[in-house]
Every structure is written in structure tokens, then in C-alpha cells.
């Protein structure tokens, strides 16, 4: 019922938007549906204004469509009604769904080649473009807002517990030790985390150069299976479950619900996205630092590189050449170091090109804001291996939910960590088989 109603709204909206474009022959209008409300939405509008004023042939019209799932749903409903926008922002876990929709989308590498836009995939940060490329390295969607997982630590708390604020824990054993000391120093708990699946499994596995699934983490085909119940993951979950019993670790809820534990000063170590840096700066009343993800020193190859989260821009299919020309021009504009540096510095999301990173460095931004640079260096730590380009699994939003559920069962001591991880794999694989069947 909801979908139908949404579809009608979408149809009407598109009809209204398309009308002026028909009346005034030029400029060519490009509709961009995105999921950035509030302050982020204003930055999106600023970028589009900049593009629209830089020339008079093309006009990009950004429209806020709600959160990530709302936006994706609106795009899909509009596609079904045969009036999709030109550009649709889709969260990273929707990548497999978009990719499988052949005919509904226009791959970006193809678009840029057809329109003769200068386009060098090597100019981009490989761990960012890798997430949105085929196994052959063909970029399917345009990376837009990318982040990665780091940990934030309360420097005032570190001082109180006699820990060195300039040397945050680098390995997991060190971090557990620090967390215990913080608890002993009077804090309710030592550490917490957001986004269990994304941080403690997806990034955790990449950081230790472990495969998340067969077939190059799903890049090489839909007949992939999860491999997250290996000994390193089991050890990690066992450690956290034990610290949960000791009340050194505390669970704050799904998604980013644990934030308040850190910002209130109750818990001094918190795993969260670098995309939350701006929010932390605005809400924390104490001195805090950002550090790289810890690793287990006995795991070969660790630390490798972390992977991204966030969203990318998909170009929808069946538009005319003029419109594609406009989209290609706009993407070139988006990739310029100036625009990327602006977006990066204004929002905390990562720059997608190396040039934008260099530019930001030259502008001295990281001297006052060391946090985001930690994240970029973590992504660039080593050239990505097949295990660390990213992950590509169908029904990933559902699978993340399964992981949340099993994780909660482990912490509530209803299942052993081994059992919980085995069940994640088993239930996750069932979803993968369904996705494979639907998209054959």
C-alpha cells in the first residue's frame, strides 16, 4: 500500500518537474534525487548552484527524497512508472541491487566514454572506487559521500586514567587493556560501538585482509557465500562478549544508537564512522581524538586497509544523449579537486580523488582537523587486495539486520560466539541464494 502511494507521489512530482523542461527547450535539466537533509542538503544545493552558474547549457535540479531507503524506493517506484530521475543516490549496501538491474542503469564508465568526457579512474582513491566497480575495474556508479570506520576516544578520560593521549591503542589487546583501565578509573564502561556489521565485521575483516565471502566478496558472481565465521572473527566476538560480561564493553543499540554513550562522556572509547566527525565536534564537550581501527598483531597482513560506507550516484537508463551529456559534464565538475575539497571539509565525508586530498592538505585543513586524515590514511594504508575492495552481496540491508540479531543473541548469552557467527553465515547464505534466484 505504501509503495503504491509513494509511486503516485513520485509520478506527480516527476510530471511537475518535467513540465517546465518541456516548455523551455534549453537548458537541459538533470534531476538528481538525494538523501541529504538539513545542513548536508544545503551543501548539495550549493554545489549544484555552482555548476548551474558555471555554464548555461545544463541545469541540475537536486531533490531531497528522505533517508537512504526512501530515496532508493522513490527511484525504484519512479523507474517502474517509467519516469526515473537522471541521477539517483544509493547507499553502499544497495550496490548489488542496482548492479543487478541491467537496463535500469547506465554504468558510469560507459557514460563517460560515450560522452567523450575525460575520465581517469586512477585519479580516484582505489578503495573508494573499488567498492562501486566491477571485478574488472569498470566504475559503475559515481562515488559521492564516502566514509570509513575509525574509533573516537575521550582525551580527558585518557588523562584521568593515566593513558597516553598521543598514543591511542593500536591493537585490540591494547584497546581492551585501555578499556579496563578506564573502567577502573571510574567510568561506567570502557568502550562501545555503532554499526556492528559494518565496523566489527565488514571493516574488521578487510583490516585483517580476510575474505568476507567467496567469489572475491561477491564481486565475481552472485553464487557467493559468507566466510565470516572464521577463527579471527570468532576470537574477536568472544573477546567482546567476555568484556560485555565484565561490563567493560557496553552495547548501545543498532545502527548509530551508541553515539550518546560517547558524547555524554559515559564511555570514553567509541567505534563510529568518520562521517560522524562533524556531529562529534558539535556535541562533545570534551577533548577527543580519532584513531585508526585496532588489529590483532598475530594476524598475517594486518593492518591492511579499511573499506568505505556511504553512498554513490547511479545514472538511470533510457535517457537521451543530451541528458547524458549533461550528467557527464556534471560528474566531471563533481570530481574536480575544488568541489571535492569543499565537500570533504564541509561535511567530514572523504574526498574521492587523491588530488582533492592533496589540495585539502595544502590548505592546512588537517592541522586543525586531524581526524579525517586518519581515516584517509587508513583507506590508503596498503593497496587493496581482493579481500579489501569492498563487499557486494544482494539483500545486504537484510543481512546486516540478521547480523544485528545474532550479535544480540551472543551478547545476551543465548548463543556462543561460534554459534552466532555460524548462524549469521547460514541465514545470510539463504538470502544470497534468494537474491541469486531473483536476479538470474
Amino acid at each position, binding site marked *: 500500500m505504501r509503495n503504491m502511494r509513494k509511486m503516485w507521489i513520485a509520478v506527480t512530482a516527476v510530471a511537475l518537474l518535467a513540465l517546465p523542461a518541456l516548455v523551455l527547450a534549453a537548458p537541459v535539466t538533470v534531476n538528481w534525487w538525494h538523501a541529504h537533509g538539513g545542513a548536508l542538503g544545503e551543501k548539495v544545493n550549493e554545489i549544484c548552484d555552482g555548476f548551474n552558474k558555471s555554464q548555461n547549457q545544463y541545469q541540475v535540479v537536486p531533490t531531497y527524497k528522505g533517508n537512504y531507503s526512501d530515496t532508493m524506493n522513490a527511484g*525504484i517506484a519512479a523507474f517502474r512508472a517509467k519516469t526515473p530521475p537522471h541521477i539517483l543516490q544509493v547507499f553502499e549496501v544497495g550496490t548489488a541491487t542496482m548492479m543487478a538491474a541491467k537496463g535500469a542503469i547506465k554504468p558510469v564508465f560507459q557514460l563517460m566514454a560515450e560522452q567523450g568526457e575525460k575520465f581517469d579512474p586512477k585519479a580516484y582513491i582505489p578503495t573508494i572506487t573499488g567498492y562501486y566497480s566491477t571485478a574488472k575495474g569498470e566504475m559503475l556508479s559515481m562515488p559521492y559521500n564516502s566514509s570509513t570506520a575509525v574509533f573516537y576516544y575521550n582525551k580527558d578520560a585518557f588523562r584521568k586514567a593515566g593513558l597516553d593521549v598521543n598514543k591511542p591503542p593500536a591493537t585490540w589487546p591494547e584497546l581492551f587493556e585501555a578499556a579496563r583501565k578506564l573502567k577502573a578509573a571510574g567510568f561506567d564502561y570502557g568502550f562501545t560501538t555503532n554499526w556492528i556489521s559494518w565496523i566489527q565485521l565488514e571493516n574488521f575483516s578487510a583490516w585483517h585482509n580476510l575474505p568476507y565471502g567467496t567469489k572475491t566478496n561477491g564481486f565475481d558472481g552472485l553464487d557467493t557465500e559468507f566466510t565470516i565465521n572464521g577463527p579471527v572473527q570468532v576470537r574477536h566476538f568472544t573477546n567482546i562478549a567476555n568484556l560485555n560480561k565484565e561490563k567493560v564493553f*557496553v552495547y548501545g543499540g543498532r545502527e548509530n544508537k551508541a553515539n550518546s554513550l560517547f558524547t555524554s562522556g559515559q564511555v570514553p572509547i567509541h567505534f563510529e564512522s568518520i562521517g560522524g566527525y562533524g556531529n562529534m565536534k558539535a556535541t562533545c564537550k570534551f577533548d577527543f581524538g580519532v584513531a585508526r581501527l585496532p588489529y590483532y598483531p598475530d594476524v598475517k597482513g594486518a593492518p591492511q586497509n579499511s573499506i568505505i560506507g556511504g553512498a554513490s550516484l547511479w545514472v538511470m537508463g533510457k535517457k537521451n544523449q543530451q541528458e547524458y551529456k549533461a550528467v557527464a559534464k556534471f560528474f566531471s565538475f563533481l570530481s574536480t579537486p575544488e568541489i571535492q575539497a569543499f565537500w570533504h571539509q564541509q561535511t567530514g565525508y572523504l574526498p574521492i580523488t587523491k588530488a582533492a586530498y592533496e589540495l585539502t592538505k595544502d590548505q592546512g585543513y588537517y592541522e586543525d582537523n586531524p581526524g579525517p586524515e586518519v581515516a584517509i590514511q587508513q583507506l590508503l594504508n596498503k593497496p587493496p587486495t581482493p579481500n579489501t575492495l569492498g563487499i557486494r552481496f544482494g539483500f545486504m540491508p537484510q543481512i546486516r539486520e540478521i547480523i544485528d540479531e*545474532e550479535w544480540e543473541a551472543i551478547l545476551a548469552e543465548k548463543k556462543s560466539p561460534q554459534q552466532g557467527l555460524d548462524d549469521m553465515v547460514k541465514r545470510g547464505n539463504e538470502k544470497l541464494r534468494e537474491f541469486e534466484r531473483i536476479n538470474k
Partner: protein
Amino acid sequence: MAKQYEFPGKGLPYLLVLPQMVVVFMFFFWPAAQAMWQSLYIQDAFGLSLTFVGLENYLKLFKDPLYLDSLVRSFVYAGLVAFTAMTVALFLAVQANRRIRGALFYKTMLVWPYAVATLVAGVLWLFMFNPNIGVVSYLLSKRFGVAWNYLLDDRQAFLLVTLAASWKQISYNFVFFVAGLQNVPVSLVEASAIDGAGSGKRFWRIIFPLLSPTTFYLLVMNLVYAFFETFPIIHQVTQGGPNQATTMLVYKVYRDGVFNLDLGSSSAQSVVLMILVIALTIVQFRFVERRVTY
């Protein structure tokens, strides 16, 4: 039965109900038919590949122990929500119906929560009961020594969403009960008082039976509410967790359809839910309504 008014022509009554029927058709029958049709297929999100699978989506549901658990849980939940919301509302209505000072003020305050959007109600409960920052959970743990953590304790989570969903519905029930109580003839109550019935007896023997049409109507509405309309609360407070302790049927329909884009299964689930609630309503009309005196 009193003689009913008859319209002169046959066309006019149909014309008069037409606008309503159009709305009902557009927003209820058509989507319901769509759901039934979609439940027989599996398809990708974009509708590019559509495969007819017959009843497979349904069979898969009923083979899934997690779905069956959720089915049982939803019934328990709906029963508890309806019972709690109605009992509390009836108690409050009886109290407010007495001649007390400031009755209007009480009534107004009690009706207020109805104006709160369900999603906002969810946020309110989330902030009060959050184990780490909630005021109520602070009191529970510091004053009463209750280890309150609904993020991991499935019984606490279930209790919390049941209470939150009930709270939201109390106002609605309250309005109807107050209206119903005002229709109870004072003379009957007074007569029974003269015959020596105490206040308890007066309530159960006179007032409660006379309220039965209201109670029956509310029972149907509350069950429908608990089955269909409480998902914003679950979405805000627990997101179906911990594990699946608060995953009710309607929430699963929403998650699988809107968020997970698994249209075949989501449609099958919504059809199952629809059939269940239709069946439940029929049962109520056949068996419970017999005990209602109009």
C-alpha cells in the same frame, strides 16, 4: 426494528456512497489486490524479472520457524495491547465520570496523548527508557535496583513496546468509554443502589453490560490497531530486536517490503496478515458480539 427511511429512487443512494467507495477502492481494494498478485511472484526490486512461483512465498513463510515465532508473538502482543489499553482506559473513564472537581481538566489531559503521532510517541518512550540516557531507566536502576537493559533483554523489550503501544491507544479508548458512560441512565444505577447493590456490583451488573457495545467496538479497533498501526513504535524503540524479540508481523512486512525490497515475500506476509485480521474480526462478530446488548 424501527422502520427505516427509504429513498425514492435506486440511483441516489449509490451516488451518495460513490465518493467513499472510490476512496476505499483506490486505497484499500486495489493495493490489496496488488499485494495478492505480487505474492505469487518473485521479482527484483526494479520489476525487470518477474517469475511466477505460485504459493512458494507462502510455503517458505510457514516453513520458517522465525516467522512462526513472530506470528505467535504478534497475537500475544495484540492481545496484551488491547487488554492493557482498554482496562486502563475504562478505569480512568469511570474515575473521570464521577463528579469531581476539575473533571474537564483531567479529561483533556487524558485525551492529549492521542494527538501525539505514533512515531513521536516512539521517540518519547525511547528517550525515557533508553538504558544509558533514559530518565526512567536511571530511576529503575539507581532507586529500585532493576537491571534495565531492553537492548539485550528480550522480555524487557517486549514489555516496553507493549506498554508504549498501549499508552498511545489509551486516549482513544478513554474518549469512547467516557461517551459510553454518559449514556448509561443514571436512574438505573440509582435504582440498583436503592436495592442495595454496592459500587462493585453496580459496575459489573449494570454499567459494564450497558457499555458492552462500546467495549466490543473498541476491542475490534484495538486489535486492528495493535496488528497494523504500531510499527512506528517498534521502528523507533527496538527495530524488532533484541534478536527478534519484538519483530511483529506488521513490522516484518514493512522492513522486508520498504527497506529490504523483497516484494514477493513482503506481499505474501501482508496477505497473511490481512487474512488473519479478517478472520479475527469475523470470529469476534460471530462469537463475542452475541454477548453484546445494544
